[in-house]
């Protein structure tokens, strides 16, 4: 693996909150097109790790490089414009706006149409067409006129991922996309994620092992804020330290 194919490169990352070290000496890299799952017990620091990459928090120590450029310390919107888009563990959408507008706001941003007042939104055919395409992709095209807040939980999670996809990122980061979903819904959303993220780098936090093993080609186990093990799914499955820390010695959850 040469360094040029590395999309995301993190070395010796630290983050402490008032003396509590949540992330310590964490190193991890993601290559072009890699599908990388992050697993680990609750409170291991997975979401904090996501927040550090996407600019919600700044690291206490260590740097994050994306395409060879240092992104640690940048604001969230700058990081997004560089090609990193994330979803949230707790659904984070625009509840009082229509499903269509939720997606369209991301399309505008992707196209760099942020402050324009030269044209009315209803006359921007290319933007509206791209919005329709994303809605079809996530299977919400029949509900495009509904308020996002009125959708059922599964549809809101799909919309959350749709907003994340719509900025056309180079790396997609999904924070527990299947949290709180039924088996049926989970199957649907995993198929959707699989379909929509083809060819892109994917970084996904997930608790459901079935989802992890079906989506990922690389798995990293985070435990007490550091990477315990990292490698292809088979290796992780057989790794003794991982079994002890997370998988619980044979018993499945």
């Amino acid at each position, binding site marked *: 693996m040469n360094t040029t194919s590395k999309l995301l490169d993190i070395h010796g990352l630290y983050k402490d909150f008032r003396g509590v070290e949540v992330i310590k000496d964490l190193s991890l890299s993601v290559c072009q097109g890699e599908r990388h799952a992050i697993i680990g017990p609750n409170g291991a620091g997975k979401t904090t790790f996501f927040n550090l990459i996407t600019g919600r928090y700044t690291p206490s120590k260590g740097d994050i490089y994306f395409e060879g450029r240092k992104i640690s310390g940048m604001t969230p919107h700058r990081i*997004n414009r560089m090609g990193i888009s994330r979803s949230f563990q707790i659904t*984070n959408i*625009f*509840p009082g*706006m229509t499903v269509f507008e939720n997606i369209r706001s991301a399309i505008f941003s*992707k196209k760099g149409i*942020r*402050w*324009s007042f*030269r044209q009315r939104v209803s006359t921007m055919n290319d933007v509206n067409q791209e919005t329709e395409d994303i809605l079809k992709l996530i299977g919400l095209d029949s509900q495009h006129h509904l308020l996002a807040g009125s959708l059922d939980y599964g549809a809101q999670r799909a919309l959350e991922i749709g907003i994340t996809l719509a900025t056309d990122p180079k790396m997609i980061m999904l924070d527990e996309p299947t949290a709180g979903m039924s088996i049926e819904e989970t199957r649907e959303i995993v198929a959707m994620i699989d379909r929509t993220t083809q060819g892109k780098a994917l970084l996904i936090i997930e608790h459901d092992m079935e989802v992890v093993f079906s989506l990922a080609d690389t798995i990293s186990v985070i435990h007490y804020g550091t990477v315990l093990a990292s490698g292809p799914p088979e290796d992780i499955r057989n790794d003794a330290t991982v079994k002890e820390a997370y998988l619980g010695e044979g018993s499945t959850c």
Partner: protein
Amino acid sequence: MHRSRFTWLQIVVVILLLLVLPKLISEYRLNLVITMMIYSIFALSYNMLFGQGGLLSFGHAAYFGFGAYTTVILIKQLEVSLPLGIMLGGLAGAFLGCAFGVFVVRLRGVAFALLTLAFNQLIYVTAEKWRSVTGGEDGIAFMRPNLFLGGWEIDLWATLNWYYFVLIVTVFSIGCLWYLTLTPLGRLNLCMRENEERARFIGYNTYASRLLIYTLAGFFAGIAGGLAASFQEFVTTTFINLDKATDVLMMTFIGGGGTFFGPVIGACALTLINDLLSSWLERWAIVQGGLFILLVLYAPNGLSGLYMSIRERWDAQKRGNTRS
């Protein structure tokens, strides 16, 4: 934001009605309509922050007043024309909006409300104490200059001409504000109200965007201030005091911030109520306050929200009747 139920046809009818209005009502009533139009611009500029942006400001009178003083001083001292004076009043409002906005748009909720209030008081005290420029509590009186248009002199002292002048500025301003809600920037304002954090994580610089919106709101408040001062041919600290700041909040709230034209309804209603009650009752403010409390408690989306919910219930009932 609910989709506006106004169609082009309705807008044309309203504008036609406003054009022939001087034939239909007395001069006293016409002056009342002028007041309503000016406050409509003011309330709509406020609603960019309140209804569309989700920011509760207690200091929007600062931009109204700053625009008013600028217009008056420029017309009196430099003898600029009235349209230019009002335009520069708007730009002054935008300038102040940008200058204060740098600080206030970082904040949300209570902190935002208090800082806007503090800035409003800062401008108020400056206007009160800097007598050599602002005339202090006495204010500045001036004459509304006539309008020169391509060799024609239009006497703006005549109520009829002045009415049409205000009408043109109002239609243009409201048109701009409405158009803005249909553009990407206007939609972004709604996004930031709904979920500012999500907007940041899809690539919007929400701080700069909020600042731009705040500046634009200052511009239209300044235009309204310039118009109001030109109307009264007088500017004083009442243009900038706390009453003015809460008046615009009341208008917007009473009309309803959830629809585009809600604040216009609020501006008209409050102007009308003040006029009616002040001629009947000495303590009309008590009634106004009571009305406000009732609306806050029972119609938190204002009169336009009340209308929408009644209409929805009515529609549902009709559908129910046809089904059975």
